[in-house]
């Protein structure tokens, strides 16, 4: 019995490294296994991702239930060297990382299971599985890492693998073109992020996020680095007006890849969150809960920075929601239309985050302590919750679009129609995804959107009015899709269309079940998964403390 416990504890200790290492190992084993048999290779890929997800869930369970922070230093030893240099590469997992790891593992699992049937007719599948496992490894790396440069490396790994996957169907010119756009955009974004990392390194001689967060002084160069980081990651996350690559790439990639691309986009968004609220935690959002007066003396808390940042983010968020929804209303290509909806959904997330920033700045500090106000905290929670819901809903819709492409070889909504007669389960899944994205109760999209509406209403009523209006427009856009693809008279050219294959239904079913579960028990998910993540972002001091134990701050207040 104790032996089992020891093994579990040992696995738990090493799981941060294993989560990234297992897909990497699997990626390079796949071409060798693919020489034996195709089915064995597919099964192997599913097995690898399932193993990774198992470790991710193990880790997330531990982190989220205990509220602890785990660090994993590669090569062993302590996080800091004797002289206090922070050059060792380490993974640091707190609530937010664990939360993102859950999302990534769900998406990865669904994506790999889905591709079993979906990619059956394509050639070169050895490479496909290698790339998909590489992309999963990169995604997990981005999410788990606690090192700036490592973040950049995993960002690039993800984008290279993603680009090759977008352009996987090289017989389609548009797909290749979308891949080229994606790689140009991500290369430029990543290079500017690297530039920002170099600026930070030049000042503090550290690449470790926790040490940087401890040291940061918000000099002029730091502000430049902040702007570079935010803009670079915002472009990777597809925020208007830097979103135009997103519909091109999402629309042209195979559906299983699109699902993972959603995950990669979320990971970039996570990066932006981590940069603003942990790395610049002293200056932006992090200080809020830790209104420790000793800490305050060293903190260069800049209330204007919060205001300006909140202003920028909210402006971009409103633009993102509006343009995403308007384009989704007009678009007639199935996958591009969902991609625009995805843009709008990202807008909701950053609207919440921007409101959190703004809520901090608008609280005047009578006791010289800027405590995150209740609406700000709620907005942060809503935004984080919506990351999960967005990934699931949009992912499910993309899978449905892929299933329709698989059975009819058609993506134009003008040519589809009456498919509900042939594809019952797919229709049900689409209906679930539609209602969830539009924020209809009792599905998951509603649970997070109500948080966003309520909190933004207290920040500024106009924001929540715009958000609700755009949600209705989003529903209208999806009703259009539902009408034109699934309803209507039975068409002769689709007489032979059958239900999607089993593996695709299983993948869609997984996502749909999770959506319904979250919809029915939003409180449970909110308290057990989302709140630890939001707390982890707010308590940036704990993040530093996990690496540098000399850095102690006492907790006061709380909610």
């Amino acid at each position, binding site marked *: 019995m104790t032996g089992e416990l020891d093994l579990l504890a040992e696995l738990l200790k090493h799981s941060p490294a294993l989560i990234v290492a297992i897909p990497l190992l699997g990626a390079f084993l796949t071409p060798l296994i693919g020489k034996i048999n195709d089915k064995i290779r597919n099964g192997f890929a599913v097995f690898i991702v399932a193993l990774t997800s198992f470790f991710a869930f193990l880790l997330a369970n531990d982190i989220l239930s205990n509220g602890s922070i785990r660090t994993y230093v590669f090569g062993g030893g302590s996080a800091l060297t004797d002289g206090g240099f922070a050059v060792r590469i380490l993974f640091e997992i707190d609530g937010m990382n664990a939360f993102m790891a859950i999302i990534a593992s769900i998406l990865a699992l669904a994506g790999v299971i889905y591709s079993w049937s979906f990619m059956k007719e394509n050639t070169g599948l050895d490479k496909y599985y290698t790339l998909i496992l590489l992309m999963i490894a990169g995604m997990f790396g981005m999410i788990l890492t606690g090192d700036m440069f490592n973040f950049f490396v995993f960002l690039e790994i993800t984008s290279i693998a993603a680009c090759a996957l977008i352009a996987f169907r090289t017989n389609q010119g548009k797909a290749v*073109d979308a891949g*080229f*756009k994606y790689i*140009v*955009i991500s290369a*430029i*974004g990543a290079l500017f992020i690297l530039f920002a990392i170099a600026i930070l390194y030049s000042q503090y001689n550290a690449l470790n996020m926790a040490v940087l967060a401890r040291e940061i002084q918000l000099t*002029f160069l730091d*502000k*430049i680095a*902040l*702007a*570079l980081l*935010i*803009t670079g990651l*915002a*472009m990777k996350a597809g925020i208007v*007006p*830097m979103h*135009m*690559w997103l519909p*091109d790439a999402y629309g042209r990639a195979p559906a299983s890849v699109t699902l993972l691309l959603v995950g990669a986009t979320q990971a970039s968004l996570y990066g932006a969150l981590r940069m603003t609220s942990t790395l610049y935690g002293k200056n932006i959002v992090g200080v809020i809960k830790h209104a420790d007066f000793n800490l305050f003396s060293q903190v260069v808390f*800049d209330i204007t920075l919060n205001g*300006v*940042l909140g*202003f*920028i983010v909210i402006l*971009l968020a409103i633009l993102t929601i509006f*343009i995403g929804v*308007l*384009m989704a*209303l*007009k678009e*007639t290509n199935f996958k591009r239309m969902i991609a625009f909806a995805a843009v709008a959904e990202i807008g909701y997330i950053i609207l919440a985050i921007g409101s959190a920033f703004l809520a901090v700045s608008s609280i005047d500090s009578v006791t010289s302590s800027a405590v995150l106000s*209740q609406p700000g905290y709620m907005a942060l*929670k809503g935004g984080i919750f919506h990351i999960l819901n967005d990934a699931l809903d949009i992912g499910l819709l993309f899978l449905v679009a892929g299933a329709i492409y698989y059975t009819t070889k058609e993506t134009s*909504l*003008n040519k*589809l*129609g*009456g498919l509900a007669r042939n594809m019952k389960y797919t229709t049900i899944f689409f209906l679930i995804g539609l209602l969830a994205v539009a924020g209809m*109760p*009792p599905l998951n999209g509603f649970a997070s959107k*109500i*948080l966003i509406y*309520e909190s933004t209403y207290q920040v500024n009523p106009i924001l929540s009015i715009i958000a609700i209006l755009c949600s209705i427009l989003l529903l209208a856009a999806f009703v*259009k899709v539902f*009408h*034109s*693809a699934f309803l*209507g*008279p*039975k*068409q*002769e050219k689709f007489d032979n269309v059958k239900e999607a294959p089993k593996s695709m239904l299983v993948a869609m079913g997984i996502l749909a079940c999770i959506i319904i579960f979250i*919809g*029915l*028990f939003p*409180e449970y998910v*909110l308290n057990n998964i989302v709140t630890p993540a939001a707390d982890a972002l707010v308590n940036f001091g704990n993040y530093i403390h996990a690496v540098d134990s000399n850095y102690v701050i006492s907790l006061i207040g709380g909610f």
Partner: protein
Amino acid sequence: MLYQISRFIEQWLDSFKTGSEAFGVGFWNPLAWIISIIIAFLIVYIIRGMGKNEYKEKTEQTKVFLSGNPEAEKEKMHVKASNVYWGFLETLKWLYKGLDKMHNGNVSDYVLWFVIILGVTLLLIGGI
């Protein structure tokens, strides 16, 4: 006894509010929504049951009747996706013209947008 019953009813009613700070006060409980959806389905079912039951398939009754006009092909009968919100799109044509220009598929322009936003952010954040 009476007190206990009234207390129980109160608690039951309370369960329809989410009862937490997070979701505010209101009938946002998923349970309430499921119950109301089931009730709505029941009502629809009852209304459907009230319909005439002399309906027979594949007879004159099921034929499409378009004010005496001949029925077009099935594919032509279906409202196309691009026609669904025609009025809305027509009204906002001025806006969509600009938006379409934005999404021109040229990666140079995409990068130009990035540079513009980068410049604005640098000015705003660096300027404070």
